């Protein structure tokens, strides 16, 4: 059983991954990330603020916050996810067409943050595979924009984690989900 990493490298060597077409697709995908409106709590306000005139997420082609998950590419989980909400969120995620990405925005979504209690899901990673985490409570809009840029890098296959491992373009694919 080859590890994902080895397979990835092999495919890359053979030129199957990241051929010109793949590059074009990755370029298209990374520059047209339409988020689904999934605002939960405080971070949702900063998510709104990231689209406002000052920060203008639209510059990255992500202005079209789609209300329908069917037309969205990335889910920004903005805020604390309660256990009552978790199934709903999974459902919204399942309704999104592949390939899809998840940005876990803020401390509460990423780790439960300060709400370490009976009501809050500790890390949305236990519900959906997360591509990018954004620390902060709430993160500045610019921090979210930085996260979107990080995600773009990931989609283009340029992302590495701290140990230097190359990351797959979509987190959901790596886990065999």
């Amino acid at each position, binding site marked *: 059983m080859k590890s994902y990493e080895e397979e990835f490298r092999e495919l890359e060597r053979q030129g199957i991954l990241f051929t010109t077409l793949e590059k074009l697709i990755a370029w298209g995908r990374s520059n047209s990330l339409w988020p689904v409106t999934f605002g939960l709590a405080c971070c949702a306000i900063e998510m709104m603020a990231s689209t406002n005139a000052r920060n203008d997420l639209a510059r990255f082609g992500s202005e079209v916050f789609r209300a329908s998950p069917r037309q969205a590419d990335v889910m920004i989980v903005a805020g604390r996810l309660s256990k009552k909400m978790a199934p709903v969120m999974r459902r919204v995620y399942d309704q999104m067409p592949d390939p899809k990405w998840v940005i876990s925005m803020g401390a509460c979504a990423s780790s*439960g943050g300060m709400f*370490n209690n009976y009501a809050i899901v500790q890390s949305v990673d236990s519900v959906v595979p997360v591509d990018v985490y954004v620390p902060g409570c709430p993160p500045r809009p610019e921090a979210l924009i930085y996260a979107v840029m990080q995600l773009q890098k990931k989609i283009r296959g340029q992302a590495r984690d701290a140990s230097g491992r190359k990351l797959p373009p979509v987190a959901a694919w790596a886990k065999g989900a």
Partner: protein
Amino acid sequence: MRRDQAKAYAEEKGIPVREEHGLLHLVLPLAEFKVHMGAFKEMGFNYLADVIGVDYKDYPEGTPWQHPERFAVIYELVSMPGFKDGDGSRIYPRVYVPEAKPRLPTVTDLWPSANFPEREVYDLFGLVFEGHPDLRRILLPEDAEGHPLRKDHPLGETPTLFNDGRYIDPESFRAGLRGKDKGLTGWRGGRRKGERR
């Protein structure tokens, strides 16, 4: 002032009254609770601002407050200023509910605004309001177990993770504050004032 009126009423009916930090607390007996609440409504307390549930299980003895039963439900009644002849009086009638039979009558018929908060008390404390039109869980999922604001319900914390398997377990970390253990902060502890053994 309706506040004085309510106080006079309480003295007349033999209801214990307690004033503290500017709040007028009235301890209503559970049996005639509804009668007295109706009287307050008659008196002109037209607005129910809040319904507060408290679980006095761990409340230490030796404080000025004595609590005969485990649960208390505190109502906040206001004579709404700016509406008709409201004068802004506030009273805090409360009723103690025994643990063995956690039931009390609803006041939604007197103040419709009691609907949500009574459901909340039901949800978080497990007190049943008899006669409530729609008594379902409100904040927690329908299938949740337990009533989280009861003192014996755990907070349900998960440890914070760090490198190399190090972690902080919040409960033991905080134990020093509870006066039970010295905890991970290294604080030597000392009994929490008022803590019941």
